[in-house]
């Protein structure tokens, strides 16, 4: 039983829109209704004339000399994407604030929007101060020339996808007695605090950030957005609490989507299925403004392009480019699904050309010992894992059903480490983690670690929401990092507390619980190959009602290291798998020829409903512990990495036409 889930089921959650204060003001953002235009007039509300700030990016040193433009909080002179904030109004009544937003007058001189990667490369720069639309370029691996017998090329594409957590973004900012207090639905109170501190020029000690219960995120609640700056600024100005809650339509037009990645690849190999090299270009559409995460994503995708395989020659050129679309952000997987889809689709192409079984070709290309890819990625030999998995999933049977199979790796984002704090208070153990759970069930591994190290019963352990005044430093929840990084820090904090307990001679858990001890730990760790987990995914497709492709069964054999909570892991995997499947079938953020998102409602974005859920066969296994003391590996993004290439292949096997672009083009079925 989880106290947290029980609270939600009683309707007693404390999500961001549930937080209210007397005299609260409701903020509404007035947004651009053009994707690319000069602003001739903006009349009404708070505009860039009053609040002329830009967002910040974390990697300042990296930015220098780059063709790099950070988003302004409110548009000035030009709007560069549909949904860009132009003005802000507020009222003490939610409905009246919306009425007020309607009164703001904006007139535009429309410009031609740049909407695709190809357009971007051939068009005038969308930023007047830049020389072209290329944000940044990278080279990954090493140039090579090979006289391979087989050389095959393809262009692959993954469309933009919205994070679409069920709870949209939102914030309550309340400037009170010289301090800015911020309640927010977030993956990291720390990135919010750091961002607001720097953008608004505040002293770090004058701002506290508290995490509300967070109704999903999938990458969309990690960064600072313009609305957070506006709400904070207005609260400082009015000394009143300001609430902003995003509408779904705003989420579609203005929250940062993910993917939008293209690869032009060539695979080199011999006639027996030995891959000799991979080269080509990876291009990412970062939208109208850049940040470090989006602009470096081509090199991050390139870094992991060799997956679990031993491919000795790799050369990738990466480009991130501007378009007149909402700025790109992370979406569950953030680069991992792209790399996996690209390499897996190329391997299928190669196996088909040779008439070999695609699984045999994959097995043949796994390393026998630790392999360092020319990209710098180091992977452990995984043949034993995949051979075992192929048996466990009954490949002979799968083949009869024309299943698609993918191999993959999951690299956890351990960079920067993580923090944890334990505080014993009123007979309970309270825990804060630097990564702020949005109820992926971190409480289950937290309870387990505390019980294991301190012997305290699980029902006495409470995982608290993120809070910068309780735990000063931290990183955040993303990139399949929490079990491994926050788990690591918590484990160390618990060991330190155990030492104190032993010194004081406290023996029984009851004695420990009546103490007032606390302990805090920051673990700064580095990625090593033991933390990278292996993923084997298989999918079986059907053509529903004779026209619509569907996935009827998905099978996963996933390495999770030491499993900290099998129920939590199961839910993470099935959730990720369905997102991955849906990205193949219908889920996408598409724009019309004027640059307006085609979807206006949640259902129109093509997300999965219960009727889309396939039969799941999830086998959780451990292919060795990670080097972290509790042995965990990552899991959060496993399904979104594994499902797309397996599902695309399964459909390809039925329709007998090559699938190289997601979501699949239904014309292929005609």
């Amino acid at each position, binding site marked *: *039983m*989880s106290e*947290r*889930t*029980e*609270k*939600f*089921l*009683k*309707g*007693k*959650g404390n*999500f961001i*829109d*549930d937080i209210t204060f007397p005299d609260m003001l409701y903020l509404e953002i007035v947004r651009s209704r053009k994707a690319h235009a000069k602003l001739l007039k903006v009349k009404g509300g708070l505009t860039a004339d009053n609040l002329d700030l830009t967002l910040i990016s974390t990697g300042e040193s990296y930015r220098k000399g780059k063709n790099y433009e950070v988003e302004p909080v409110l548009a000035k002179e030009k709007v560069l994407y549909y949904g860009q904030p132009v003005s802000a109004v507020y009222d003490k009544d*939610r*409905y009246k604030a919306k009425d007020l937003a309607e009164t703001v007058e904006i007139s535009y001189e429309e410009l031609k929007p740049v909407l695709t990667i190809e357009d971007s490369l051939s068009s005038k720069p969308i930023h007047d101060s830049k020389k072209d639309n290329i944000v940044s370029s990278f080279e990954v691996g090493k140039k090579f020339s090979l006289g391979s017998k087989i050389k095959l090329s393809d262009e692959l594409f993954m469309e933009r996808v919205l994070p*679409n*957590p*069920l*709870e*949209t973004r939102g914030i309550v900012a309340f400037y009170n007695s010289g301090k800015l207090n911020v309640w927010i639905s977030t993956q990291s109170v720390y990135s919010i605090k750091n961002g607001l501190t720097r953008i608004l020029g505040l002293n770090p000690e004058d701002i506290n950030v508290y995490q509300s*219960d*967070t*109704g*999903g995120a*999938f990458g969309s609640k990690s960064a600072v957005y313009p609305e957070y700056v506006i709400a904070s600024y207005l609260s400082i100005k009015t000394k009143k609490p300001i609430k902003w*809650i995003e*509408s*779904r*339509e705003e989420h579609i037009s203005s929250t940062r989507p993910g993917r939008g990645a293209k690869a032009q690849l060539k695979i080199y190999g011999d006639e027996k299925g030995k891959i000799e090299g991979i080269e080509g270009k990876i291009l990412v559409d970062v939208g109208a403004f850049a940040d470090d995460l989006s602009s470096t994503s081509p090199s991050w995708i390139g870094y992991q392009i060799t997956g679990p395989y031993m491919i000795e020659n790799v050369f990738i050129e990466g480009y991130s480019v501007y378009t007149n679309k909402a700025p790109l952000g992370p979406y569950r997987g953030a680069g991992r699904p792209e790399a996996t889809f690209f390499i897996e689709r190329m391997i299928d192409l190669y196996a088909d050309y040779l008439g070999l079984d695609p699984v045999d070709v994959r097995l043949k290309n796994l390393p026998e010992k630790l392999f360092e890819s020319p990209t710098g990625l180091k992977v452990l030999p995984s043949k034993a894992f995949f051979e075992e998995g192929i048996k466990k999933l009954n490949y002979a049977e799968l083949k009869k059903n024309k299943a698609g199979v993918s191999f993959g790796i999951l690299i956890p984002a351990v960079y920067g480490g993580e923090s944890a704090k334990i505080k014993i208070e009123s007979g309970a153990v309270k825990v804060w983690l630097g990564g702020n759970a*949005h*109820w*992926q*069930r971190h409480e289950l591994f937290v309870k387990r670690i505390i019980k294991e190290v301190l012997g305290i019963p699980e029902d006495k352990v409470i995982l608290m929401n993120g809070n910068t005044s309780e735990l000063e430093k931290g990183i955040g929840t993303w990139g399949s990092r929490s079990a491994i990084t926050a788990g690591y820090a918590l484990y160390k904090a618990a060991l330190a507390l155990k030492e104190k307990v032993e010194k004081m001679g406290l023996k029984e858990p009851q004695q420990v619980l009546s103490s007032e001890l606390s302990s805090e730990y920051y673990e700064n760790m580095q990625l090593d190959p033991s933390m990278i987990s292996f993923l084997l995914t298989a999918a079986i497709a059907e053509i529903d009602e004779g026209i619509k492709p569907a996935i009827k069964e998905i099978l996963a054999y996933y390495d999770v290291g030491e499993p900290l909570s099998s*129920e*939590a892991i*199961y*839910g993470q995997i*099935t*959730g*990720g*798998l*369905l*997102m991955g499947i849906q990205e193949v079938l219908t889920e996408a953020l598409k724009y019309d020829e004027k640059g307006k998102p085609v979807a*206006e*409602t*949640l*259902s*129109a974005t093509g*997300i*999965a*409903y*219960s*009727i889309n*859920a396939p039969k*799941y066969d999830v086998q959780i296994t451990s292919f060795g512990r990670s080097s972290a003391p509790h042995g965990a590996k990552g899991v959060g993004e496993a*399904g979104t990495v594994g499902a797309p290439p397996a599902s695309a292949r399964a459909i390809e096997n039925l329709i007998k036409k090559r699938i190289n672009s997601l979501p699949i083009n239904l014309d292929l079925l005609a």
Partner: protein
Amino acid sequence: MKIKLNINGTDYESEEEPRMLLVDFIRDVAGLKGTHVGCETGSCGACMVLLDGMPVKSCLMLAVQAEGKKIITIEGLSEKNGLNKVQKALSEKKALQCGFCAAGFSIIGTWISENEKNIDDKKVKEGLAGVVCRCSGYDTIIKTITEVAKNE
């Protein structure tokens, strides 16, 4: 105008604009925050309530349209501070993750378990098709509600 609604057996009366949505009355006037707004267009079911025993999406109705009817929200599905069978099972099976969908699945799951005959997985899948869970892939939710409904 004066709007008077009966929610979970309690009468609430307030002077509001005619355009006020039922979900806003429930949340902001009655102060029952368990009913959520996820999409404003009837796509997600996070705002689901029972209206005279029928599941409805409270973001698609005006508050005034619910006058004279019996409204049950997630807070009113069981006796004081408890959980009904469906809610208890969803909790025990750890079927939910972020929890924002709790009202939707509790309301529709309860309705299915009390009203659908000859329950199977497929019926439950179809019955749940108006409520979104973005976290779990639906598997444990479908299995849990099927099991409760079969035992009803």
